């Protein structure tokens, strides 16, 4: 197990270097210069540009810039952005909001998704099953920004804004409930379908037939044998989702005015603030890789059939 973890950690290194390098090159290739637009409606004077370039090493070749950046990164320093704010501070303000949002989305996925999946799976072929299957398909088909817009519209139409705020500027938990549901809607649908598929498959499995043949009641079979086996892949899937949701929150954050990491990255791209972009995405990539590793390790623990050795 330890060997496995160490190997996985080592494999992360080229991925992180590769991903940061690609981002670095892309951000570097962005048209327009970071100093443009910093001088109101006027172009910036040449001396200002010179000073700016020097300050941020922009006068050096790309590879050297990247080297300097990587060197800092390895020391845990995400650098200072073009507004003289430390990137780590900018991230510290926004990460908690995005994490909260992702966790709320996950909570919805677990509660609604698993319940719906179990109901559909147990009553396979019934009206409820069809309802779950069709409605999840619809949810998967409707892009998140449409769901968000429709949710806002319904709340406004029903005049429920006092109970369910349609914007979440402060990012309090109460405000994040609706955005969390919108962000999590896709995961809810996936989880429901995955739960259903696994349950159906397990119910057909030999050991279940045997148990039934031995005279165990249906509910006992489901509760005792099938549920655990069916939910392991679901839990794994949910684990992976945490990472993806954080990166995918950008649209939800925009719709609901949430001051989170996605919006920060988007703005930083607009402002050609490469240090912020690369820093923020690097952290996302790291979170993603680490969460995946944890989930994989947990999976081995949960499911004895999988061995990491």
């Amino acid at each position, binding site marked *: 197990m330890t060997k496995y973890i160490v190997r*996985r950690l080592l*494999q992360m290194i*080229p*991925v*992180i270097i*590769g*991903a940061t390098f*690609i*981002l670095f090159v*892309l*951000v570097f*290739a*962005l*048209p327009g210069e970071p100093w443009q637009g910093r001088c109101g409606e006027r172009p910036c004077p040449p001396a200002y540009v010179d000073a700016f370039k020097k300050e941020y090493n922009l006068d050096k070749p790309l590879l050297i810039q990247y080297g300097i950046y990587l060197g800092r990164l390895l020391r845990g320093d995400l650098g200072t952005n073009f507004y003289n704010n430390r990137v780590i501070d900018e991230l510290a303000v926004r990460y908690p909001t995005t994490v909260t949002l992702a966790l709320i989305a996950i909570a919805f996925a677990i509660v609604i998704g698993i319940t719906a999946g179990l109901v559909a799976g147990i009553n396979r072929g019934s009206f409820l099953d069809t309802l779950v299957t069709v409605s999840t*398909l*619809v949810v*998967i*088909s*409707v*892009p*998140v*920004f*449409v769901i*968000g*817009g*429709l949710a*806002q*519209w319904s709340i*406004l*139409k029903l005049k429920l804004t006092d109970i369910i705020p*349609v*914007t979440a500027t402060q990012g309090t938990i109460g405000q994040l409930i609706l955005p969390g549901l919108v962000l999590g809607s896709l995961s809810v649908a*996936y989880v429901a*379908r*995955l739960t259903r*598929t*696994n349950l159906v498959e397990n119910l057909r499995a030999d050991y279940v037939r045997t148990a039934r043949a031995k005279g165990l009641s249906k509910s006992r079979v489901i509760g005792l044998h099938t549920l655990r086996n069916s939910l392991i*892949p679901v839990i794994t*899937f949910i684990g*992976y989702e945490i*990472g*993806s949701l954080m*990166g*995918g929150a*950008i*649209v939800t954050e925009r*719709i609901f005015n949430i001051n989170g990491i*996605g919006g920060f*990255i*988007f703005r930083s*791209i607009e402002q050609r603030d490469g240090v912020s972009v690369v820093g923020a*995405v690097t952290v*996302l*990539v790291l979170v*993603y890789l680490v969460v995946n590793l944890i989930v*994989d390790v947990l*999976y*081995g623990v949960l499911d004895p059939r*999988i061995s*990491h050795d």
Partner: protein
Amino acid sequence: MIDRRDHKDRGRREQFLAGLAEPDLAVEPPEPASDLLVGEEPTGAADKPHSLWTDAWWQMRRRPMFWISTALIIIFAVMAVWPSLFTSLDPRYCLLAESRQPPGRQHWFGTDIQGCDVYARTVYGARSSILVGVFATLGVTVIGSFVGLVSGYFGHWLDVLLSRLGEIFFAIPTLLGGIVILYSFPSKPDTPYFVVVGKVVLAITLLAWPSIARLMRGSVLQVMPNEYVVAAQGLGASSARVIVSHVLPNAMAGVIAVATINLGVYIALEATLSFLGIGLQEPAISWGIAISAASKMGYITSAPHMLLFPSLFLSLTVLAFIMLGEVARDALDPKLR
């Protein structure tokens, strides 16, 4: 031994859509097609009775979902090719004085902020979505399948290298990556329409190929140990011939189902990028652009029809492809029969 737990993370969602997201999925694709295919040309396979493909066809045509989705796709495809069949109005003729009129006899879906007819613009918007969806799917499937084939068939260092490469692109969140790429290569005023669409297609292809590559690699690994492949190799057939004649036809099924589903996913992704203001651009008419303009809070309250109709068309298109892909998956995946 094959490492069963690595590099197959981000594609999970797409793969899952194909019902394949159990953790072992990347190495447990649909069963190798069928032994009947041994030694046959892939094109001939579909004509033979009881081949995987004919079986699948028989399966599919029994499902109402297949016919509904096919009908929807045909409607939207015709709309994309020949929008003037559906409306005689010019989507670019807009009278500001008629701004934000509710749906009525003159304007079926009402008018937008500029006073353009929402119905006409929604009909004309189909083209961009379908184009992006089709070409992105082609790009992703061709590149992904190729990399997956090479990676799975030849293995060794090539596999390691390609897997790592895929992982790098996997680790970058797709949407954020798309934003950075499209920002890096902005369209100029004189950029032709197809180049603008092409950029979106390229961005999606660049970021999405690894999921298909993984799927293909897994399928290939599954197919490889079969006698007919080993036999062909033993008889001295060239790698290219073995791949084309034996490996590919048997490893394709899962990829095709996922690719159909992905087509819907890419259409949604294009709309999302356009929604964020960096996908397609004027003068292209796109559902994403229309939804983006209509989704400001003040307009949602005062003129919701501007949001509802393009959203409906977009969602129906995506739904049609995902449904078709699901039906195909069910038909092509014997395990679920």
